[in-house]
């Protein structure tokens, strides 16, 4: 019995030493953060064929690593190199499994292969507009809690923070950065399930004050007061003047598009079967997911609704998309899809679709979720 004991003791010792050495190495690595950040950047680069509609000036991966490294120590400034003119930045949640997992990242639109990671902001979903951003964060552990963080999109300092009552789902900034909206699941786990409840809040960014819970809005339909116990709201998108918004109101298994008036705390139903609306920059159209049922399953086909003519146009995307779209410009939109076709993957990629409904969707960014496009000075 002596020999097995010795072997086992030796194995235990070897394990402890290996683990200690590895943890020590991981610790030094996370302190100067070079390895983690460059891993993230390079794997992202490798997997990213940025099929951008305009130009694609790809740089060697080495320089991408260098940039990724930079973000670790001190917050990098978006648009740092082109400070004299407005630059378009794509913000997203990074999904690759490495030291940057879950972090908010941004990359210049022309240089998607050079992401910067914000070490202080890990988000389930995020949105940036008007120089400010909202990040719905999870503190994971045996008991996971969620919080909303409002931050400055240049310094990434948190302006205000408050706890959330449920699992983060959607969030949006107004284009002037003054208001934010968010939706969480109070119970339930996804829009495809039968029973779930959501909470949708409007927030004043400056002080993090909740200015409205959409449940308290008075809703009208065809001029009549409309109210039901099973009302659920989600997916707010602000109008450019930040006085109104569009959102989804679900009741009795129907999903209406509503237009809300923030000052009046009122909303009216304007269309049927519209989920997660997203208003185009010119405020003339709403991109959304339309719920269809195929073989007893929920299937969401992306559509565009012309707000003047009420005409619905399906997009060329033939897969079911469960996301709130983000307009890149008046003709292109971004959205996330699971990595694997059958939806079994835990990661997502960002895709780009054209408004014309004809050109096929293109892969925009890999291992990324929750895209937003921000023009920063």
């Amino acid at each position: 019995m002596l020999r097995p004991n010795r072997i086992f003791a030796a194995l235990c010792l070897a394990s402890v030493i290996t683990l200690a050495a590895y943890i020590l190495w991981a610790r030094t690595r996370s302190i100067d953060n070079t390895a983690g950040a460059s891993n993230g950047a390079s794997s992202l680069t490798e997997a990213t064929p940025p099929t951008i509609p305009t130009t694609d000036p790809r740089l060697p991966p080495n320089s991408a690593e260098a940039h990724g490294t930079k973000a670790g120590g001190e917050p990098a400034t978006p648009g740092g190199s082109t400070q004299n003119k407005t630059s378009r930045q794509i913000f997203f949640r990074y999904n690759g499994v490495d030291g940057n997992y879950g972090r908010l990242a941004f990359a210049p639109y022309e240089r998607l292969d050079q992401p910067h990671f914000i070490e202080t902001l890990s988000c389930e979903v995020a949105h940036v507009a008007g120089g400010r951003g909202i990040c719905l964060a999870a503190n994971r552990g045996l008991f996971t809690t969620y919080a909303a963080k409002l931050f400055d999109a240049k310094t990434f300092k948190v302006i205000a923070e408050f706890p959330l009552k449920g699992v983060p789902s959607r969030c949006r900034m107004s284009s002037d950065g003054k208001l934010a909206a968010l939706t969480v699941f109070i119970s339930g786990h996804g829009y495809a399930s039968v029973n779930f409840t959501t909470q949708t809040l409007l927030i004043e960014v400056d002080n993090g004050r909740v200015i409205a819970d959409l449940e308290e809005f008075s809703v009208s339909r065809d001029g009549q007061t409309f109210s039901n116990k099973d009302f659920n709201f989600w997916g707010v998108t602000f109008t450019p003047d930040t006085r109104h918004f569009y959102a989804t109101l679900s009741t009795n298994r129907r999903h209406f598009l509503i237009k809300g008036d923030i000052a009046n705390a009122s909303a009216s139903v304007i269309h049927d079967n519209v989920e997660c609306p997203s208003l185009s920059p010119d405020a003339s159209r709403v991109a959304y997911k339309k719920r269809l049922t195929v073989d007893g399953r929920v299937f969401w086909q992306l559509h565009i609704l012309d707000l003047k003519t009420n005409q619905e146009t399906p997009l060329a995307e033939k897969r079911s998309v469960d996301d709130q779209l983000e307009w890149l410009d008046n003709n292109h939109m971004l959205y996330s899809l699971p990595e694997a076709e059958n939806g079994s993957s835990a990661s997502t990629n960002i895709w780009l679709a054209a408004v014309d409904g004809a050109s096929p969707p293109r892969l925009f960014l890999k291992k990324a979720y929750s895209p937003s496009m921000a023009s920063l000075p």
Partner: protein
Amino acid sequence: MYRLEWIERRKLKAPAPTFADQTAKVSPVVWKLGWTSFLTDISSEMVNSALPVYLVIHLHLSPLQYGAIDGVYNGLAVVLVSLAAGLTADRSKRHKEVALAGYGFSAICKLLLLAAGGVWGWLIVITGLDRIGKGIRTAPRDAMISLNTPPHLMASAFAVHRALDAGGALLGPLTAFILLAQLPGAFDVLWVTSFLFAILGVAVLWLYVPRPKEGLLPQPILDERRISRRSLSVLFASPHFVSLVGCGLLLSVGTANDGFIYLVLLEKGGANSGFLPLFYVATAASYALFSIPAGLCADRFGRGAIFLGGYAVMGIIYLLLLFMPAVGLPAQAGCLLLLGLYYAGTEGVLMAMASAAVPAQMRASGLAILATAIAMGKAGSSLLFGWIWNAYGAPSAIVTFGAILTAAMLAAGFCLRLVGGKRSHA
């Protein structure tokens, strides 16, 4: 030997042996197999809980898709390899080596995780491969447990093993959470830790567990060379075994996957998915706590009764899920406690009953057949539950499953009484 005599002497003084005696009588080999599972479960559960698969899959999939992936994935892995592994173990009489192959395979999977870098797709494929390792090792290992245990202690032995196994499932996620809290985002440290635990598990099996002793085996009733697919018909000729497989299959169809029970609890309770990892840990804790008492009771008061009692507990969980108006935190904890109790009363006890019904020469094959039947039942159950939930809502699914479970329990009660009446330890 010394220990056995001591217990014999104590028995003479006090005719009714205490539960402590009963536990002490469980062979050290079973304890060692238990420690192997303990270490291996720490290893695999820390990976499973760290991959945000739980949360992400729950957030992005409908119940039907979730059920399909979880149930079918699990079921297929077991169906594909467990029967082959069981037959190989029986035919070669090398249970230990086959089990080692299964444990080793899972250990290698942990190394592959490190090699996969940050590619999600590969990580998911590898956790799937890990389950194949589980499929390989389960039947030979359970056969070794039973071959090292006298018939009257069968349920106690399985209970000891399952308690250690559940203990690993309890500590694995805790280890993962502590590591990730200390080193945020350092998934590779997790994979390395997990690999080391897996290696230690393999080492315990390799170094400390002897091959099944011939002395414990009953007289051979079959020519060894004839243990093959054809001779499986001998197993199926035994009404006792067939009824056990049938009961196991029926009952597993009527049992909702843990994941669904957690989802219903979340939806009813107004709790968010943040609780989910805690649910898994709480269930494992309850299982670890109740396993040995349930096994001891099974050996003492009748395995069939405890087994059906376990499913009755599942029935109670259904009733609670249906009729509790609003589920608070204490009620949720209560449901999880009951879920652990259900596992304690059913899982190991069924294996003990099956071990008593299968000749030693075919033990691994017989247990593999049973495991396969249960895995198929679970896969069907997951698909069915997901489909009903999607189409008609969670309450309809629970009512349907309650009905199936009741029917299955009636059938099982009838079968077990019929075949078990002839045997003292059914």
